[in-house]
């Protein structure tokens, strides 16, 4: 078990290194001189030279990468030129809304998608099954922001049940926090529900054709127990896998949803950073999101051990 954990951790290191190299190189592609961006229009030649020295731009690319990665490992993601703050401080300020949005969406989606997917597999071809496959196709074709605006229009403007936009911190009370987040959660959950429900349906329906299900039914186990203990338990691995893979979609969705609902999280930080050409922030946030994605999938890998006792590494 420990050996497996160590192996899995080691296996993610090359991936993380490649991610770091890509993130570092992308922003090297930028045409133009970062020193000129920072110095502004009224800078003299001497200013530019000084700023280049400060940023370490005079050193070779390899040395620059080494310094950058060393800083990142110590929790220093660089310094925002535009907002005049360390990137890590900006990230910490903005992390609560993003985590609330993401974790809430995952929870909501799993609670909706897994039972629906399992029921659709149980009565394949029934009305729930047909509704769910139509919903899945639609879920992948309707962009998040369209869903978002449709929900705002219906529930916030026409029916006036929820606030239109904005975010309240948890420290301002659970109820206001919840009220602000219901619509963003539902918006973002549409793609995620589509994704999870489809895989749940496929893997549960496969499990339902297995011999052990027939045996269980033959010896008179109730249908609920067959569905939960026999079929769903055996279908858990692909479901958890798709939840992990879906985090990439979720992160993209978070960026969009935060913009639609004016939530001051990491997504809107990214968008603002791109608009202001604030490259250290873009670098920091992209790196952070990618590392989280890799970490979630590492956890998913480890969870196989708990979900399926047949898996022994």
């Amino acid at each position, binding site marked *: 078990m420990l050996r497996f954990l160590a192996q899995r951790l080691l296996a993610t290191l090359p991936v993380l290194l490649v991610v770091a190299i890509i993130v570092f190189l992308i922003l090297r592609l930028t045409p133009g001189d970062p020193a000129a961006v920072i110095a502004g229009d009224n800078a003299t030649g001497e200013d530019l030279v000084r700023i280049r020295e400060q940023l370490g731009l005079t050193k070779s690319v390899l040395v620059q990468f080494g310094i950058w990665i060393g800083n990142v490992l110590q929790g220093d993601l660089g310094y925002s030129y535009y907002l005049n703050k360390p990137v890590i401080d900006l990230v910490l300020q903005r992390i609560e809304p993003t985590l609330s949005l993401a974790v809430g969406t995952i929870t909501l989606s799993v609670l909706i998608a897994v039972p629906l997917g399992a029921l659709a597999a149980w009565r394949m071809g029934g009305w729930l099954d047909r509704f769910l496959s139509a919903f899945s196709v639609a879920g992948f074709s309707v962009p998040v922001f369209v869903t978002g*605006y449709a929900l705002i229009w219906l529930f916030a403007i026409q029916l006036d049940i929820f606030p239109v936009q904005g975010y309240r911190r948890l420290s301002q009370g659970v109820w206001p926090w919840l009220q602000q987040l219901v619509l963003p959660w539902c918006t973002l959950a549409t793609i995620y529900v589509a994704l999870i429900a489809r895989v749940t349906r496929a893997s549960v329906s496969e499990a339902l054709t297995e011999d052990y299900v027939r045996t269980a039914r033959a010896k008179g186990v109730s249908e609920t127990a067959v569905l939960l203990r026999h079929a769903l338990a055996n279908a858990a691995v692909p479901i958890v896998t798709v939840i992990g893979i879906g985090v990439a*979609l979720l992160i993209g969705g978070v960026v969009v949803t935060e913009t639609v609902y004016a939530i001051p999280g990491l997504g809107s930080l*990214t968008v603002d950073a791109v608009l202001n050409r604030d490259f250290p922030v873009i670098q920091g946030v992209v790196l952070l999101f*990618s590392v989280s994605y890799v970490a979630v999938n590492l956890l998913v890998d480890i969870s196989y051990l708990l979900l399926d006792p047949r898996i022994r590494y």
Partner: protein
Amino acid sequence: MGTLHKLAQNTTVRLGAGVLGVLVLLALLAPFLGTLNPAAMDSAHINNATGVRGSFALTGGNSVDHTFWFGSDSFGRDIYSRVLYGTRISLLIGLTTALLAMGLGAFLGMVAGYFRAADAVLMRFMDGLMAIPSILLAIALVAALGAQLWTVVVAIAIPEVPRVTRLVRSLVLTLREEPFVEAARALATPTPMILWRHILPNAMAPMIVQGTFVAASAVLTEAVLSFLGLGLPSDIPTWGNIMAEGRVQFSQHPGNVLFPAMFLVPTVLAINLLGDGLRDTLDPKFAKR
């Protein structure tokens, strides 16, 4: 001809291709469908409601009678014209992104699948690329390259390349053991020729299926980038930037967001349906990614 016949029989393919055909026609015929220049502004027609009629002042002092079927935006531009012209950009981006991602992915996948030495390094690089959520990667690339038509296409295509590469690599790994490839090798056929003449044609069907799904997600991603204000500038109308422009005053004028959406959603749906249909007819073995 057997394959084409089978495709024409498939309802999903017919539906998807039919809707896409209508969209292509709309895109091509946009100038003749009662549209104005999509970038033209008239300050007398700011935020018109849907269906308002009036005369639109053209540059040069002339004016034309015009019906604002979808209303107008806060610059006094006709939304109907912008949405119709936006069809061109969306379809163009979907097609070129799919071709670029398939081209790069096919090349890299063949290299990785056929040359074992390159495989390890290349695939580790692809793993890293896949670990960056695709919209974020596209955002970072647009930030680095600037927003023009070709940079947007490149930025959307690159996150798709690893998936195509993996697909092609796996196909090559099985195809290279086939007797006809062995025979070609025994005849001392040069390796590039083997790849081009024997391996690529046999990998084509699953690649086309994958390419269709790439096109669907490219149309969506372009709309997302534009919507976030990171895509093409608004003098080139795209569905995404029409919605971006309209989002500020969504509660007063929901049409500016909803009309482009009414084109965007069926387009993506049609491409996805086409992909599903192609997969079922061409290549039942390969499930959607």
